[in-house]
Protein backbone atom coordinates (compact mmCIF):
# COMPACT_ATOMS: atom_id res chain seq x y z
CA UNK A 1 0.00 0.00 0.00
CA UNK A 2 2.36 2.72 1.11
CA UNK A 3 5.82 2.95 2.53
CA UNK A 4 4.30 3.82 5.93
CA UNK A 5 2.47 0.58 6.21
CA UNK A 6 5.65 -1.28 5.36
CA UNK A 7 7.52 0.55 8.08
CA UNK A 8 4.68 0.34 10.55
CA UNK A 9 3.95 -3.35 10.24
CA UNK A 10 7.06 -4.04 12.27
CA UNK A 11 6.25 -1.38 14.85
CA UNK A 12 2.67 -2.59 15.23
CA UNK A 13 3.71 -6.04 16.40
CA UNK A 14 5.74 -4.42 19.13
CA UNK A 15 2.95 -1.98 20.00
CA UNK A 16 0.50 -4.78 20.61
CA UNK A 17 2.79 -6.31 23.18
CA UNK A 18 3.74 -3.00 24.72
CA UNK A 19 0.08 -2.02 24.77
CA UNK A 20 -0.86 -5.17 26.56
CA UNK A 21 1.77 -4.47 29.17
CA UNK A 22 0.78 -0.81 29.48
CA UNK A 23 -2.97 -1.18 29.62
CA UNK A 24 -4.66 -4.44 28.66
CA UNK A 25 -7.94 -5.03 30.40
CA UNK A 26 -8.48 -2.26 32.86
CA UNK A 27 -12.17 -2.92 33.33
CA UNK A 28 -13.10 0.44 31.84
CA UNK A 29 -16.23 1.17 29.79
CA UNK A 30 -19.52 -0.67 29.65
CA UNK A 31 -20.63 -3.22 27.09
CA UNK A 32 -22.58 -1.64 24.22
CA UNK A 33 -26.00 -3.23 23.68
CA UNK A 34 -27.17 -4.21 20.18
CA UNK A 35 -29.80 -1.45 20.34
CA UNK A 36 -27.20 1.18 21.24
CA UNK A 37 -24.95 0.04 18.42
CA UNK A 38 -27.81 -0.07 15.92
CA UNK A 39 -28.64 3.60 16.59
CA UNK A 40 -25.14 4.79 15.77
CA UNK A 41 -23.85 2.14 13.36
CA UNK A 42 -24.71 3.99 10.15
CA UNK A 43 -21.69 3.32 7.95
CA UNK A 44 -21.98 1.48 4.63
CA UNK A 45 -19.04 -0.18 2.88
CA UNK A 46 -18.40 -0.99 -0.80
CA UNK A 47 -19.09 -4.69 -0.13
CA UNK A 48 -22.56 -3.75 1.14
CA UNK A 49 -21.80 -4.18 4.83
CA UNK A 50 -24.05 -1.85 6.78
CA UNK A 51 -26.83 -1.50 4.19
CA UNK A 52 -30.22 -1.48 5.89
CA UNK A 53 -33.21 -3.22 4.33
CA UNK A 54 -35.10 -0.94 2.00
CA UNK A 55 -35.87 0.10 -1.56
CA UNK A 56 -36.67 3.15 -3.64
CA UNK A 57 -37.23 4.07 -7.30
CA UNK A 58 -35.87 6.86 -9.49
CA UNK A 59 -39.32 8.47 -9.55
CA UNK A 60 -39.64 8.36 -5.77
CA UNK A 61 -36.15 9.75 -5.47
CA UNK A 62 -36.97 12.65 -7.76
CA UNK A 63 -39.75 13.72 -5.37
CA UNK A 64 -37.61 13.56 -2.21
CA UNK A 65 -34.72 15.23 -3.98
CA UNK A 66 -36.94 18.10 -5.16
CA UNK A 67 -38.23 18.59 -1.62
CA UNK A 68 -35.06 18.21 0.40
CA UNK A 69 -32.02 18.64 -1.81
CA UNK A 70 -32.76 20.68 -4.94
CA UNK A 71 -32.65 24.06 -3.19
CA UNK A 72 -28.87 23.58 -2.87
CA UNK A 73 -28.01 20.96 -5.43
CA UNK A 74 -30.41 21.97 -8.23
CA UNK A 75 -33.41 20.02 -9.58
CA UNK A 76 -31.19 17.89 -11.77
CA UNK A 77 -28.29 17.66 -9.29
CA UNK A 78 -26.45 20.22 -11.40
CA UNK A 79 -25.73 22.40 -8.34
CA UNK A 80 -27.43 25.67 -7.41
CA UNK A 81 -25.22 28.73 -6.98
CA UNK A 82 -22.00 27.66 -5.31
CA UNK A 83 -23.34 24.45 -3.73
CA UNK A 84 -21.83 21.16 -4.85
CA UNK A 85 -22.61 19.71 -8.27
CA UNK A 86 -23.72 16.08 -7.96
CA UNK A 87 -24.04 15.04 -11.61
CA UNK A 88 -22.23 15.40 -14.90
CA UNK A 89 -18.58 16.28 -15.35
CA UNK A 90 -17.78 13.32 -17.61
CA UNK A 91 -14.44 13.51 -19.40
CA UNK A 92 -13.27 16.52 -17.41
CA UNK A 93 -10.75 14.88 -15.06
CA UNK A 94 -7.77 15.64 -17.30
CA UNK A 95 -8.95 19.16 -18.12
CA UNK A 96 -8.06 22.52 -16.58
CA UNK A 97 -11.40 22.46 -14.75
CA UNK A 98 -12.13 18.96 -13.53
CA UNK A 99 -15.73 18.55 -12.36
CA UNK A 100 -15.68 15.78 -9.78
CA UNK A 101 -19.15 14.35 -9.31
CA UNK A 102 -20.70 11.08 -8.22
CA UNK A 103 -20.82 10.03 -11.86
CA UNK A 104 -17.48 11.37 -13.05
CA UNK A 105 -15.32 10.64 -10.00
CA UNK A 106 -16.74 8.61 -7.10
CA UNK A 107 -15.43 5.02 -7.21
CA UNK A 108 -18.13 3.28 -5.14
CA UNK A 109 -21.88 3.59 -4.80
CA UNK A 110 -21.74 2.81 -1.08
CA UNK A 111 -20.11 6.19 -0.51
CA UNK A 112 -23.18 7.93 -1.92
CA UNK A 113 -25.51 6.10 0.45
CA UNK A 114 -23.17 6.44 3.44
CA UNK A 115 -22.56 10.16 2.95
CA UNK A 116 -26.13 11.20 2.16
CA UNK A 117 -27.54 9.40 5.16
CA UNK A 118 -24.89 10.68 7.62
CA UNK A 119 -24.58 14.29 6.41
CA UNK A 120 -27.51 15.34 4.26
CA UNK A 121 -29.74 17.26 3.96
CA UNK A 122 -27.23 19.81 5.22
CA UNK A 123 -28.57 20.95 8.58
CA UNK A 124 -30.86 17.95 9.16
CA UNK A 125 -28.51 14.97 9.02
CA UNK A 126 -29.53 11.37 9.77
CA UNK A 127 -33.20 12.21 9.20
CA UNK A 128 -33.89 10.28 5.97
CA UNK A 129 -35.49 6.83 6.07
CA UNK A 130 -33.67 3.93 4.37
CA UNK A 131 -36.34 3.90 1.61
CA UNK A 132 -35.89 7.64 1.00
CA UNK A 133 -32.11 7.22 0.89
CA UNK A 134 -32.30 4.33 -1.61
CA UNK A 135 -34.68 6.40 -3.72
CA UNK A 136 -32.38 9.44 -3.74
CA UNK A 137 -29.38 7.28 -4.61
CA UNK A 138 -31.39 5.72 -7.46
CA UNK A 139 -32.29 9.20 -8.71
CA UNK A 140 -28.64 10.31 -8.58
CA UNK A 141 -27.59 7.19 -10.49
CA UNK A 142 -30.15 8.10 -13.13
CA UNK A 143 -29.05 11.74 -13.31
CA UNK A 144 -25.48 10.51 -13.76
CA UNK A 145 -26.47 8.06 -16.53
CA UNK A 146 -25.17 5.13 -14.50
CA UNK A 147 -28.64 3.66 -14.86
CA UNK A 148 -30.76 4.68 -17.84
CA UNK A 149 -34.06 3.02 -16.98
CA UNK A 150 -36.38 5.53 -15.31
CA UNK A 151 -38.30 2.66 -13.70
CA UNK A 152 -35.14 1.52 -11.94
CA UNK A 153 -35.51 0.50 -8.30
CA UNK A 154 -32.50 0.35 -5.95
CA UNK A 155 -32.58 -1.90 -2.88
CA UNK A 156 -30.24 -3.60 -0.45
CA UNK A 157 -30.55 -6.65 -2.74
CA UNK A 158 -29.28 -5.21 -6.03
CA UNK A 159 -27.08 -2.47 -4.49
CA UNK A 160 -23.68 -4.16 -4.84
CA UNK A 161 -24.35 -5.10 -8.47
CA UNK A 162 -23.99 -1.42 -9.46
CA UNK A 163 -20.49 -0.42 -10.61
CA UNK A 164 -19.41 3.21 -10.81
CA UNK A 165 -17.72 4.49 -14.01
CA UNK A 166 -14.55 5.76 -12.30
CA UNK A 167 -13.92 2.74 -10.05
CA UNK A 168 -10.54 2.17 -11.71
CA UNK A 169 -9.60 5.83 -11.59
CA UNK A 170 -7.61 5.58 -8.38
CA UNK A 171 -4.04 4.54 -7.58
CA UNK A 172 -2.27 4.05 -4.28
CA UNK A 173 0.02 6.67 -2.76
CA UNK A 174 3.36 6.45 -4.55
CA UNK A 175 5.12 9.34 -2.86
CA UNK A 176 7.88 10.37 -2.49
CA UNK A 177 7.62 11.49 -6.10
CA UNK A 178 10.45 14.01 -6.00
CA UNK A 179 14.17 13.19 -5.52
CA UNK A 180 15.54 12.49 -2.04
CA UNK A 181 18.76 14.13 -0.84
CA UNK A 182 20.56 10.86 -1.49
CA UNK A 183 19.50 11.05 -5.14
CA UNK A 184 20.06 14.76 -5.80
CA UNK A 185 22.17 16.75 -3.35
CA UNK A 186 20.60 20.25 -3.11
CA UNK A 187 22.84 23.03 -4.45
CA UNK A 188 24.05 25.69 -1.95
CA UNK A 189 26.15 28.22 -3.92
CA UNK A 190 26.02 29.72 -7.41
CA UNK A 191 22.97 27.61 -8.20
CA UNK A 192 21.60 29.78 -11.00
CA UNK A 193 22.73 32.76 -13.07
CA UNK A 194 19.50 34.62 -13.34
CA UNK A 195 16.20 34.72 -11.47
CA UNK A 196 12.98 36.18 -12.86
CA UNK A 197 9.58 36.64 -11.24
CA UNK A 198 7.19 34.47 -13.25
CA UNK A 199 3.96 34.78 -11.25
CA UNK A 200 2.51 37.28 -8.80
CA UNK A 201 -0.42 37.04 -6.41
CA UNK A 202 -3.34 39.18 -7.37
CA UNK A 203 -3.02 42.75 -6.28
CA UNK A 204 -5.63 45.15 -5.05
CA UNK A 205 -8.22 46.18 -7.66
CA UNK A 206 -7.16 43.64 -10.21
CA UNK A 207 -10.33 42.12 -11.61
CA UNK A 208 -10.55 38.69 -10.02
CA UNK A 209 -11.65 37.12 -13.28
CA UNK A 210 -8.71 38.47 -15.23
CA UNK A 211 -7.06 35.09 -15.41
CA UNK A 212 -9.83 32.68 -14.75
CA UNK A 213 -7.57 29.75 -14.00
CA UNK A 214 -7.01 30.67 -10.42
CA UNK A 215 -10.49 31.80 -9.49
CA UNK A 216 -11.73 30.23 -6.31
CA UNK A 217 -9.74 27.03 -6.20
CA UNK A 218 -11.70 25.35 -3.45
CA UNK A 219 -10.18 23.89 -0.30
CA UNK A 220 -12.79 21.13 0.02
Amino acid at each position, binding site marked *: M*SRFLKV*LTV*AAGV*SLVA*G*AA*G*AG*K*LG*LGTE*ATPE*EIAGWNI*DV*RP*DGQGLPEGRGTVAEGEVVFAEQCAVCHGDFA*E*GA*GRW*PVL*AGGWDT*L*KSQHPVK*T*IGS*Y*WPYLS*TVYDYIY*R*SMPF*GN*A*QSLTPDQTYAIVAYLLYMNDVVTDDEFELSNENFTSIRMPNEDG*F*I*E*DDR*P*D*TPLVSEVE*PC*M*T*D*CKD*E*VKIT*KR*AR*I*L*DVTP*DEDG*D*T*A*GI*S*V*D
Partner: protein
Amino acid sequence: MSKSDTPEKGIASPSRRNLLKAGLAAGGLAATAGFARAAEPDPYNLPPNVADWSRYLGVGVDNAPYGMPSEHESEVVRRSVEWLTASRESSINFTPLHDLDGIITPNGLCFERHHGGVAEMNPTDYRLMINGLVDKPLIFTLEDLKRFPRENRLYFLECAANSGMEWRGAQLNGCQFTHGMVHCVMYTGVPLKYILEEAGLKTNAKWIMPEGGDAAGMNRSVPIEKALDDCMVAFKMNGEALRPEQGYPARLVVPGWEGNMWVKWLRRIEVGDQPWHAREETSKYTDLLASGKARRFTWVMDAKSVITNPSPQAPITHGKGQTVLTGLAWSGNGRVTRVDVTLDGGKNWHQARIDGPSLPKALHRFYFEFDWDGSDLLLQSRAYDDTGYVQPTKDELRAVRGENSIYHNNGIQTWHVMANGGVENVEIS
Protein backbone atom coordinates in the same frame (compact mmCIF):
# COMPACT_ATOMS: atom_id res chain seq x y z
CA MET B 1 -26.03 20.02 -17.15
CA SER B 2 -22.46 19.96 -15.97
CA LYS B 3 -21.43 23.43 -15.05
CA SER B 4 -18.04 25.00 -15.06
CA ASP B 5 -17.08 27.22 -12.17
CA THR B 6 -18.63 30.30 -13.78
CA PRO B 7 -21.16 31.04 -11.02
CA GLU B 8 -18.40 30.57 -8.48
CA LYS B 9 -16.34 33.26 -10.12
CA GLY B 10 -19.30 35.58 -10.22
CA ILE B 11 -19.76 35.31 -6.51
CA ALA B 12 -16.08 35.28 -5.80
CA SER B 13 -15.43 38.77 -7.08
CA PRO B 14 -16.94 41.06 -4.42
CA SER B 15 -15.83 39.05 -1.42
CA ARG B 16 -12.37 38.67 -2.81
CA ARG B 17 -12.18 42.40 -3.16
CA ASN B 18 -13.23 42.77 0.48
CA LEU B 19 -10.56 40.34 1.46
CA LEU B 20 -7.96 42.39 -0.29
CA LYS B 21 -9.27 45.56 1.28
CA ALA B 22 -8.96 43.87 4.63
CA GLY B 23 -5.25 44.24 4.32
CA LEU B 24 -3.70 41.94 1.81
CA ALA B 25 -2.49 44.38 -0.78
CA ALA B 26 0.75 43.21 -2.28
CA GLY B 27 3.52 45.18 -0.80
CA GLY B 28 1.13 47.92 0.26
CA LEU B 29 2.63 48.72 3.62
CA ALA B 30 -0.24 50.90 4.77
CA ALA B 31 -2.87 48.36 3.74
CA THR B 32 -1.20 45.39 5.37
CA ALA B 33 -2.76 43.85 8.47
CA GLY B 34 -0.34 44.21 11.32
CA PHE B 35 1.10 47.48 10.18
CA ALA B 36 -1.42 49.36 12.34
CA ARG B 37 0.56 48.37 15.39
CA ALA B 38 3.57 50.41 14.29
CA ALA B 39 1.74 53.62 15.24
CA GLU B 40 3.55 56.83 16.21
CA PRO B 41 4.85 56.70 19.81
CA ASP B 42 3.42 59.13 22.37
CA PRO B 43 6.32 61.26 23.74
CA TYR B 44 4.51 61.44 27.09
CA ASN B 45 5.36 57.76 27.69
CA LEU B 46 9.00 57.99 26.62
CA PRO B 47 12.08 58.81 28.71
CA PRO B 48 12.74 61.09 30.43
CA ASN B 49 8.94 61.28 31.05
CA VAL B 50 7.26 58.80 33.37
CA ALA B 51 4.21 57.11 31.87
CA ASP B 52 0.88 56.71 33.65
CA TRP B 53 1.39 52.99 33.90
CA SER B 54 4.47 53.63 36.02
CA ARG B 55 2.53 55.90 38.40
CA TYR B 56 -1.00 54.59 38.92
CA LEU B 57 -2.26 51.21 40.03
CA GLY B 58 -3.49 48.87 37.37
CA VAL B 59 -6.56 46.65 37.57
CA GLY B 60 -6.50 43.97 40.27
CA VAL B 61 -6.58 40.21 40.05
CA ASP B 62 -9.70 38.59 38.61
CA ASN B 63 -10.24 41.50 36.27
CA ALA B 64 -10.35 38.73 33.70
CA PRO B 65 -10.92 35.31 35.32
CA TYR B 66 -9.91 33.81 32.00
CA GLY B 67 -7.08 36.01 30.75
CA MET B 68 -7.13 37.49 27.29
CA PRO B 69 -4.35 38.97 25.11
CA SER B 70 -3.51 42.68 25.37
CA GLU B 71 -5.91 44.97 23.50
CA HIS B 72 -2.90 45.96 21.38
CA GLU B 73 -2.88 42.45 19.96
CA SER B 74 -6.42 42.66 18.60
CA GLU B 75 -5.15 42.14 15.04
CA VAL B 76 -3.84 38.71 15.97
CA VAL B 77 -6.83 36.66 14.88
CA ARG B 78 -7.87 33.81 12.66
CA ARG B 79 -9.07 35.04 9.29
CA SER B 80 -11.07 33.38 6.54
CA VAL B 81 -11.29 33.73 2.78
CA GLU B 82 -14.98 34.01 2.07
CA TRP B 83 -14.97 32.98 -1.56
CA LEU B 84 -13.48 29.58 -0.77
CA THR B 85 -16.66 27.93 0.45
CA ALA B 86 -20.42 28.23 -0.01
CA SER B 87 -21.37 28.07 3.67
CA ARG B 88 -19.88 29.19 6.97
CA GLU B 89 -20.70 25.84 8.59
CA SER B 90 -18.63 23.91 6.11
CA SER B 91 -15.71 26.26 5.90
CA ILE B 92 -12.21 27.13 6.97
CA ASN B 93 -10.20 29.87 8.61
CA PHE B 94 -6.47 30.34 9.00
CA THR B 95 -3.88 30.59 11.79
CA PRO B 96 -2.08 33.98 11.83
CA LEU B 97 1.37 32.42 11.47
CA HIS B 98 3.03 35.80 10.81
CA ASP B 99 2.05 37.01 14.30
CA LEU B 100 3.32 33.98 16.21
CA ASP B 101 6.72 32.75 17.30
CA GLY B 102 8.09 29.57 18.83
CA ILE B 103 6.39 26.29 17.95
CA ILE B 104 3.20 26.25 20.08
CA THR B 105 -0.01 27.63 18.61
CA PRO B 106 -2.24 29.33 21.19
CA ASN B 107 -5.55 27.46 21.47
CA GLY B 108 -7.72 30.34 20.31
CA LEU B 109 -5.64 30.83 17.15
CA CYS B 110 -5.64 27.24 15.87
CA PHE B 111 -7.28 27.30 12.45
CA GLU B 112 -10.79 25.85 12.14
CA ARG B 113 -12.21 23.52 9.54
CA HIS B 114 -15.71 22.16 10.06
CA HIS B 115 -18.07 20.30 7.78
CA GLY B 116 -21.25 20.77 9.78
CA GLY B 117 -20.45 23.63 12.12
CA VAL B 118 -19.14 23.33 15.69
CA ALA B 119 -20.98 20.60 17.62
CA GLU B 120 -22.02 21.87 21.06
CA MET B 121 -21.46 18.73 23.08
CA ASN B 122 -21.91 18.50 26.79
CA PRO B 123 -19.25 16.40 28.51
CA THR B 124 -21.75 14.54 30.70
CA ASP B 125 -23.52 13.14 27.66
CA TYR B 126 -20.34 12.44 25.73
CA ARG B 127 -19.97 8.79 24.71
CA LEU B 128 -17.31 6.97 22.69
CA MET B 129 -18.49 3.68 21.19
CA ILE B 130 -16.12 0.94 19.97
CA ASN B 131 -17.78 -1.70 17.78
CA GLY B 132 -17.13 -4.01 14.85
CA LEU B 133 -14.37 -6.62 14.92
CA VAL B 134 -13.81 -6.55 18.69
CA ASP B 135 -14.32 -9.17 21.38
CA LYS B 136 -16.62 -6.91 23.34
CA PRO B 137 -18.17 -3.69 21.98
CA LEU B 138 -17.78 -0.96 24.56
CA ILE B 139 -19.06 2.50 25.40
CA PHE B 140 -16.82 4.93 27.30
CA THR B 141 -17.77 8.09 29.13
CA LEU B 142 -15.31 10.98 29.28
CA GLU B 143 -14.57 9.94 32.87
CA ASP B 144 -13.75 6.43 31.67
CA LEU B 145 -11.28 7.85 29.12
CA LYS B 146 -9.53 9.82 31.86
CA ARG B 147 -8.90 6.61 33.84
CA PHE B 148 -6.57 5.20 31.16
CA PRO B 149 -2.82 5.89 31.38
CA ARG B 150 -2.22 9.27 29.73
CA GLU B 151 0.46 10.66 27.43
CA ASN B 152 1.53 14.20 26.46
CA ARG B 153 2.67 14.75 22.87
CA LEU B 154 3.39 17.80 20.77
CA TYR B 155 2.17 17.42 17.18
CA PHE B 156 1.43 19.65 14.23
CA LEU B 157 -1.92 19.26 12.48
CA GLU B 158 -2.00 20.35 8.86
CA CYS B 159 -5.00 20.31 6.54
CA ALA B 160 -4.15 18.43 3.34
CA ALA B 161 -5.55 21.45 1.45
CA ASN B 162 -3.07 23.86 3.06
CA SER B 163 -1.53 25.87 0.16
CA GLY B 164 -4.09 24.20 -2.11
CA MET B 165 -5.08 27.56 -3.58
CA GLU B 166 -1.51 28.03 -4.82
CA TRP B 167 -1.32 25.00 -7.16
CA ARG B 168 -1.89 27.12 -10.28
CA GLY B 169 0.28 30.01 -9.16
CA ALA B 170 0.71 32.65 -6.48
CA GLN B 171 -2.76 33.69 -5.42
CA LEU B 172 -2.95 34.96 -1.85
CA ASN B 173 -0.82 37.61 -0.19
CA GLY B 174 -0.11 36.42 3.32
CA CYS B 175 1.37 33.30 4.87
CA GLN B 176 -1.77 33.18 7.02
CA PHE B 177 -3.69 32.39 3.83
CA THR B 178 -1.09 30.39 1.93
CA HIS B 179 0.10 28.29 4.90
CA GLY B 180 -2.23 28.98 7.84
CA MET B 181 -4.04 25.63 7.85
CA VAL B 182 -1.49 24.29 10.29
CA HIS B 183 -1.17 24.45 14.06
CA CYS B 184 0.87 22.72 16.72
CA VAL B 185 -0.21 22.07 20.29
CA MET B 186 0.58 19.72 23.18
CA TYR B 187 -2.10 17.03 23.38
CA THR B 188 -2.95 15.14 26.52
CA GLY B 189 -4.85 11.94 25.97
CA VAL B 190 -4.93 8.17 25.83
CA PRO B 191 -2.99 6.08 23.32
CA LEU B 192 -5.66 4.66 21.02
CA LYS B 193 -4.19 1.19 21.33
CA TYR B 194 -5.16 1.06 25.01
CA ILE B 195 -8.76 1.84 24.15
CA LEU B 196 -8.88 -0.68 21.30
CA GLU B 197 -7.26 -3.38 23.42
CA GLU B 198 -9.79 -2.80 26.15
CA ALA B 199 -12.44 -3.93 23.65
CA GLY B 200 -10.10 -6.63 22.31
CA LEU B 201 -9.20 -6.66 18.60
CA LYS B 202 -10.18 -9.71 16.52
CA THR B 203 -7.35 -11.21 14.48
CA ASN B 204 -8.86 -9.94 11.20
CA ALA B 205 -8.98 -6.34 12.43
CA LYS B 206 -7.18 -4.37 9.69
CA TRP B 207 -8.80 -0.93 9.65
CA ILE B 208 -10.64 1.42 11.96
CA MET B 209 -13.27 3.98 11.07
CA PRO B 210 -13.33 6.94 13.45
CA GLU B 211 -16.60 8.88 13.24
CA GLY B 212 -17.50 12.35 14.52
CA GLY B 213 -20.56 13.22 16.56
CA ASP B 214 -21.09 16.49 14.65
CA ALA B 215 -23.75 17.13 11.99
CA ALA B 216 -21.30 15.98 9.30
CA GLY B 217 -20.69 12.64 11.00
CA MET B 218 -17.15 12.88 9.64
CA ASN B 219 -15.75 9.40 8.94
CA ARG B 220 -12.40 8.16 7.65
CA SER B 221 -10.56 4.84 7.29
CA VAL B 222 -7.32 4.47 9.24
CA PRO B 223 -5.12 1.37 8.88
CA ILE B 224 -4.77 -0.59 12.12
CA GLU B 225 -0.96 -0.28 12.04
CA LYS B 226 -1.25 3.49 12.42
CA ALA B 227 -4.03 3.19 15.00
CA LEU B 228 -1.81 1.01 17.18
CA ASP B 229 1.34 3.02 16.54
CA ASP B 230 0.93 6.62 17.68
CA CYS B 231 -2.74 7.63 17.45
CA MET B 232 -4.32 9.13 20.57
CA VAL B 233 -7.74 10.10 21.83
CA ALA B 234 -7.03 13.58 23.21
CA PHE B 235 -9.11 15.64 25.62
CA LYS B 236 -6.63 18.44 26.39
CA MET B 237 -4.66 20.83 24.21
CA ASN B 238 -1.90 22.98 25.69
CA GLY B 239 -3.02 21.83 29.13
CA GLU B 240 -6.68 22.88 28.98
CA ALA B 241 -9.80 21.22 27.62
CA LEU B 242 -10.03 21.05 23.83
CA ARG B 243 -11.72 24.11 22.41
CA PRO B 244 -15.23 23.39 21.05
CA GLU B 245 -14.01 24.15 17.54
CA GLN B 246 -11.20 21.62 17.98
CA GLY B 247 -13.53 18.77 18.92
CA TYR B 248 -14.47 19.24 22.59
CA PRO B 249 -14.62 17.07 24.55
CA ALA B 250 -12.49 14.49 22.69
CA ARG B 251 -10.81 14.15 19.30
CA LEU B 252 -8.60 11.71 17.48
CA VAL B 253 -4.91 12.58 17.02
CA VAL B 254 -3.27 11.02 13.95
CA PRO B 255 0.33 12.32 14.10
CA GLY B 256 1.90 13.45 10.83
CA TRP B 257 -1.20 12.58 8.77
CA GLU B 258 -3.66 14.93 7.10
CA GLY B 259 -5.86 16.94 9.44
CA ASN B 260 -9.16 15.61 8.06
CA MET B 261 -8.40 12.23 9.68
CA TRP B 262 -8.11 13.76 13.16
CA VAL B 263 -11.85 13.30 13.71
CA LYS B 264 -13.26 15.86 16.14
CA TRP B 265 -16.15 15.28 18.58
CA LEU B 266 -15.18 11.61 18.27
CA ARG B 267 -18.26 9.46 19.00
CA ARG B 268 -17.47 6.05 17.55
CA ILE B 269 -14.70 3.84 16.24
CA GLU B 270 -15.68 0.84 14.18
CA VAL B 271 -13.11 -1.87 13.60
CA GLY B 272 -13.19 -3.65 10.24
CA ASP B 273 -11.24 -5.80 7.80
CA GLN B 274 -11.27 -3.36 4.85
CA PRO B 275 -11.44 0.39 4.25
CA TRP B 276 -14.77 2.21 3.99
CA HIS B 277 -13.99 4.56 1.08
CA ALA B 278 -15.89 7.33 2.82
CA ARG B 279 -16.74 10.54 0.99
CA GLU B 280 -13.74 12.31 2.57
CA GLU B 281 -11.35 9.72 1.09
CA THR B 282 -12.91 9.45 -2.37
CA SER B 283 -14.71 12.63 -3.48
CA LYS B 284 -12.33 14.70 -1.32
CA TYR B 285 -8.77 14.16 -0.09
CA THR B 286 -7.77 12.24 -3.21
CA ASP B 287 -5.13 13.87 -5.36
CA LEU B 288 -6.09 14.16 -9.02
CA LEU B 289 -3.06 13.85 -11.32
CA ALA B 290 -2.59 15.19 -14.84
CA SER B 291 -3.30 11.69 -16.19
CA GLY B 292 -6.87 11.88 -14.86
CA LYS B 293 -6.10 9.19 -12.29
CA ALA B 294 -6.17 10.14 -8.64
CA ARG B 295 -4.01 9.04 -5.74
CA ARG B 296 -5.97 7.83 -2.77
CA PHE B 297 -5.06 7.26 0.87
CA THR B 298 -2.38 9.95 0.66
CA TRP B 299 -2.24 10.28 4.40
CA VAL B 300 1.21 11.64 5.26
CA MET B 301 1.99 15.35 5.22
CA ASP B 302 5.41 15.64 3.57
CA ALA B 303 8.13 18.01 4.81
CA LYS B 304 7.32 21.67 4.30
CA SER B 305 8.43 25.09 5.49
CA VAL B 306 7.46 28.73 5.15
CA ILE B 307 9.06 32.03 6.10
CA THR B 308 6.56 33.74 8.38
CA ASN B 309 8.52 37.01 8.77
CA PRO B 310 9.03 38.90 6.60
CA SER B 311 5.89 38.00 4.65
CA PRO B 312 3.11 40.03 2.98
CA GLN B 313 1.26 40.65 6.26
CA ALA B 314 4.54 41.27 8.09
CA PRO B 315 6.59 43.67 5.97
CA ILE B 316 9.98 45.02 7.03
CA THR B 317 9.19 48.33 8.74
CA HIS B 318 12.60 49.20 10.18
CA GLY B 319 14.49 49.91 6.98
CA LYS B 320 17.88 48.49 6.18
CA GLY B 321 20.29 46.96 8.65
CA GLN B 322 20.02 44.07 11.09
CA THR B 323 17.01 41.93 10.13
CA VAL B 324 15.53 38.77 11.60
CA LEU B 325 14.06 36.25 9.19
CA THR B 326 12.05 33.47 10.83
CA GLY B 327 9.74 30.66 9.83
CA LEU B 328 8.27 27.25 10.50
CA ALA B 329 9.16 23.81 9.21
CA TRP B 330 7.54 20.43 9.77
CA SER B 331 7.38 16.87 8.48
CA GLY B 332 4.76 14.19 8.92
CA ASN B 333 7.49 11.61 8.50
CA GLY B 334 9.57 12.61 11.50
CA ARG B 335 11.92 15.32 12.63
CA VAL B 336 13.10 18.30 10.59
CA THR B 337 16.88 18.01 10.46
CA ARG B 338 17.76 21.14 8.54
CA VAL B 339 16.30 24.25 6.92
CA ASP B 340 18.05 26.30 4.22
CA VAL B 341 17.06 29.83 3.29
CA THR B 342 17.92 31.98 0.31
CA LEU B 343 17.69 35.77 -0.02
CA ASP B 344 18.40 35.91 -3.77
CA GLY B 345 15.83 33.53 -5.21
CA GLY B 346 17.91 30.39 -4.92
CA LYS B 347 21.27 31.51 -6.30
CA ASN B 348 22.84 31.00 -2.88
CA TRP B 349 21.49 29.18 0.15
CA HIS B 350 22.36 29.48 3.84
CA GLN B 351 21.64 27.02 6.60
CA ALA B 352 19.13 28.51 9.04
CA ARG B 353 19.29 28.08 12.83
CA ILE B 354 16.62 25.80 14.28
CA ASP B 355 15.75 26.97 17.79
CA GLY B 356 13.61 25.30 20.44
CA PRO B 357 12.61 21.64 20.73
CA SER B 358 13.05 19.49 17.62
CA LEU B 359 10.34 16.85 18.00
CA PRO B 360 9.07 14.40 15.39
CA LYS B 361 5.82 15.44 13.65
CA ALA B 362 5.89 18.82 15.41
CA LEU B 363 6.53 22.34 14.14
CA HIS B 364 10.15 23.51 14.16
CA ARG B 365 11.12 27.18 14.45
CA PHE B 366 14.01 28.50 12.36
CA TYR B 367 15.83 31.85 12.24
CA PHE B 368 18.28 33.55 9.92
CA GLU B 369 19.67 36.94 10.88
CA PHE B 370 21.17 39.16 8.20
CA ASP B 371 22.16 42.72 7.35
CA TRP B 372 19.62 43.99 4.80
CA ASP B 373 21.08 46.47 2.31
CA GLY B 374 17.63 47.71 1.31
CA SER B 375 17.58 46.07 -2.10
CA ASP B 376 14.93 43.67 -3.47
CA LEU B 377 15.04 40.16 -2.00
CA LEU B 378 13.53 36.87 -3.13
CA LEU B 379 13.11 34.78 0.01
CA GLN B 380 12.65 31.02 0.11
CA SER B 381 13.10 28.26 2.67
CA ARG B 382 13.48 24.52 2.14
CA ALA B 383 13.13 21.86 4.82
CA TYR B 384 14.81 18.46 5.14
CA ASP B 385 13.61 15.60 7.34
CA ASP B 386 15.27 12.57 8.89
CA THR B 387 14.05 10.27 6.09
CA GLY B 388 16.31 12.12 3.61
CA TYR B 389 13.39 14.01 2.08
CA VAL B 390 13.95 17.58 0.91
CA GLN B 391 11.12 20.01 0.23
CA PRO B 392 10.59 20.29 -3.55
CA THR B 393 9.86 23.40 -5.61
CA LYS B 394 6.30 24.03 -6.77
CA ASP B 395 7.40 23.43 -10.35
CA GLU B 396 8.89 20.06 -9.42
CA LEU B 397 5.55 19.07 -7.92
CA ARG B 398 3.61 20.32 -10.94
CA ALA B 399 5.92 18.37 -13.24
CA VAL B 400 4.91 15.07 -11.59
CA ARG B 401 1.35 15.83 -10.50
CA GLY B 402 -0.08 18.52 -12.77
CA GLU B 403 -2.14 21.37 -11.33
CA ASN B 404 -5.38 19.69 -10.29
CA SER B 405 -4.28 17.96 -7.10
CA ILE B 406 -5.65 20.58 -4.63
CA TYR B 407 -4.12 18.63 -1.72
CA HIS B 408 -0.56 18.09 -0.51
CA ASN B 409 1.08 21.18 -1.97
CA ASN B 410 4.31 21.33 0.03
CA GLY B 411 6.29 23.26 -2.59
CA ILE B 412 8.80 25.96 -1.70
CA GLN B 413 7.20 29.39 -1.13
CA THR B 414 8.74 32.60 -2.51
CA TRP B 415 8.29 36.08 -1.01
CA HIS B 416 9.47 39.17 -2.89
CA VAL B 417 10.71 41.85 -0.48
CA MET B 418 10.68 45.27 -2.13
CA ALA B 419 12.90 48.24 -1.39
CA ASN B 420 10.15 49.84 0.74
CA GLY B 421 9.98 46.72 2.90
CA GLY B 422 6.66 45.54 1.46
CA VAL B 423 6.39 41.86 0.63
CA GLU B 424 4.43 40.05 -2.08
CA ASN B 425 3.73 36.43 -2.92
CA VAL B 426 5.46 35.48 -6.19
CA GLU B 427 6.88 32.55 -8.08
CA ILE B 428 10.26 32.68 -9.77
CA SER B 429 12.19 30.98 -12.52
